[in-house]
C-alpha cells in the first residue's frame, strides 16, 4: 500500500509537466485556453490525491505518540511480566 501510494503521488507530480499542451492555443467554449482547463483539472486531482493520502496514509502514530509519554512507556515495560 505504502509503495503504491508513493507511486501514485509521483505519477500525479509528473502529470503536472503536460508538455502535450505546451503550444496548444485551443479555447475551450471559446473562453478558456485548454492548458488552463487541464491545470484546473490538475488542481482537483491534487485535492483528490490529498484525500486519498488522508484516507490511506494518515500518520496515526503521531496521535498515539501524544497519548503515550515516555514515562507511560516505561510503566508499560515494568508492568510487562
Amino acid at each position, binding site marked *: 500500500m505504502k509503495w503504491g501510494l508513493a507511486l501514485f503521488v509521483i505519477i500525479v507530480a509528473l502529470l*503536472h509537466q503536460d508538455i502535450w499542451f*505546451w503550444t496548444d492555443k485551443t479555447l475551450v*467554449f471559446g473562453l478558456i485556453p485548454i492548458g*488552463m482547463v487541464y491545470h484546473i483539472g490538475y488542481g482537483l486531482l*491534487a485535492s483528490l490525491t490529498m484525500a486519498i493520502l488522508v484516507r490511506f496514509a494518515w*500518520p496515526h*502514530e503521531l496521535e498515539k*505518540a501524544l497519548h503515550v509519554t515516555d514515562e507511560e*512507556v516505561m510503566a508499560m515495560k515494568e508492568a510487562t511480566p
Partner: protein
Amino acid sequence: MIPALIVFAYLCVVLYIGIFAFRKGKASGEDFFLASRGLGPAVFLLSLFGTNMTAFAILGSSGLAYRQGIGVFALMATSSSLVIPLTLFFIGTRLWALGKRFGHMTQVQFLRDRWECSGIGTFIFALTAAMLVPYIIIGVIGGGQTLEGISTVMGPDGKPVIGPDGKTMHWVSYEVGGAIVALVVMSYVFFGGMRGTAWVNAFQTVLFLCFGTFAFILIARSLGGFDSVMQKLAANPSSAQLLSRERILPTEFFSYMFIPLSSIMFPHIAIMCMTAKKISHFKKTVVLYPICIMAVWVPAVYLGVVAASQYPGLGPGESDDVIIRLLTDNVPYLLAGILGAGIMACVMASDSQILALSTMFSEDIFAYYGGKDRFGDKAQIWTGRIFVILIALLAYVIALALKDKAGIFELAIRFAFSGFASLAPIMLAALFWKRSTKWGALAASLWVAFAVLGTWYLTAVSEKIAPRPPAARQASAPGSVSQPTGQINVAPGQPTAVSSGQTAAPGAGAPGSRPAGPPTSPRLVQIYPALGDMFQRGAVNVYIYGFLPVMPMVLISALLMIVVSLLTKPPGKETIDKYFPKKETEQAAVSADPVPASRA
C-alpha cells in the same frame, strides 16, 4: 476619496479583531505566540492559506500572466496545489505533534534539540530572519503605495488633479499610508498575538476569496464577456502566445516544482502549523488547500491575460498593477473601494511574518539564553511585544528611506523563496532520517547562505545583458501586442553570447555586455561564455543550464545533508529514542496488551 474611506473602515475592522483577540487571551507565552495551540479547523485552514497568499503572490501573478501568459497558472499555482499540501501532510503534522509533545514553538527549537547543538539553531535563526525581513518591508511599501494609489484626488472632469509640484495629488501620501499600515499591523499583532493574527488572516482570506470572484464577474460584465477578449488575443499570432506556454521555458517550468517546498520552511508557516487544536485539522486543510489556491489564482492569472488585450505595451514594473487598472476602469467607485480593501488584505500579509520573527526572537534567543528563567513568562511576552514594535518601526523607516528601491526587496524575496526551499532537505532529514547529523545540517545551511548570495551576485552582474521581456519589447512596437520570440532589440556591434553555445564577437564574456546578432534562442544569454550554458540570464532570472537556481540549490543541499551526515558522528541514542520512539512504544504497547494488535 470613497475607496480610501472604505479601506480605512476595513483597517478599523482588522484593528478591532486584534483587540477582541486580546480580550480573549491569557497571560502565557504559549497563548500569545501560539494561541494556546487551540485554533479550530476553519480558522486554521483560512489563516494558513492567508499567511501564504501575499500581495507578491496575487498582484505579482497577474503581472506575470500579463507578460508570460496563461501558463503562469500552472507554473506557480498548480505546482503549489500539490507540493504545499504534501509538505503540510508530511512535515506540518510532525511539527505539530513534536511541538505538542515537547513544547516546541519554533523550528529552531526542534532543530537544536534534534541535533544536540545550539550553534546550528542560532545559524538557522539568523539565516531565516535575514530572508524574512524583506517581506515585512515590502508589506509596508505595498501598503503605502496602495493607500496612496486609491486616494488620488480627482478633478471634476474625472481626471487626477496635478499639484503645483507637477505630481499627482493624493489625499493620503505614501509616507502617511505606510505609517497607517505599519501601525495597524503592529497594533493587532501587539495586542492579539497569534490569535489576533490568525483571526485577521482568516478574515482577510475570506475577503480576497470573495474579492477574486467579484472582480472577475464585474470586469467580465463591464467588458461584455471574456470570449471576445480571448478571440481578439487568439487572432493575433504574437498575442496568441499568451494563451499557451510558449513564453515559458520547459526547464523553468520544471524548476518551479521545487519552489513550493519553501512554504513549510517559512517560519510563519511552520509556527502556524503548531497552532492547530487537533492533528485532525490538517485533514481538511490539505484536501481543501488546492481548491483555495484555484479560487484565488484562476481569476488573478486570467485577468492578467485579459489585461494584455486592454493595456498593451506595459513594462514589467507597470504590469504588476494590471488588476488595479482593470478595477479602476471597469468597476464603480464603491465596489472599487471594497475590492481595494481586498487588495489591502493581500498587502497586509506581513503580520504573521512580524509575529514569527517576534516568536523566534523571544523563544530562540531570549528564552534560550536564560531570559525566561531569569525574568519569567510575562517578561517573555513583553519582549515579544516590544520586538513587534521595533520590527514594525524598522520596516517603516527602511520603507521610507528606500521608497524608490522596492525592486531590491522584491529581488530579495525571490531569492528567499529559493533559500527556504533549499532548507527543506534539512527539515526532512531531521524528521525522517535517524542518521542525519548536525554537521550535515550545518553544511547544507552554509550552502544555502552561499547559494543565495551567489544568485544575488549573478543577477546583479548580468543586469545589463538581460534580454528585454516581451512586454517591454512590445512597448517599442506600437500597435502590436508583442513581438515573436527570437527578436531581441540589441545595440549593434556589442559583444555577447546567447544560449545554445552561440557566441558573438570576440572578447565576449565580461558581465555587462549586451546581446547582438540574430539569436535563435534569445531568452537566455550566457553570463560567462567561457563556462558555456552553466550560468545564463533571462529577462528577470538567472538560470543554471536552463534551470532556475532553486533546483540545483535544493538538490545540492540534500546531497550535502546525506554525504556529510554519513561522514560524521550520529546523534546520541537518547536523542534518537526521543524523536524516533515508534518501535519502542509499539513494542511496549504490544507487550503490555495481551490482545494481539491484529485482533484489537
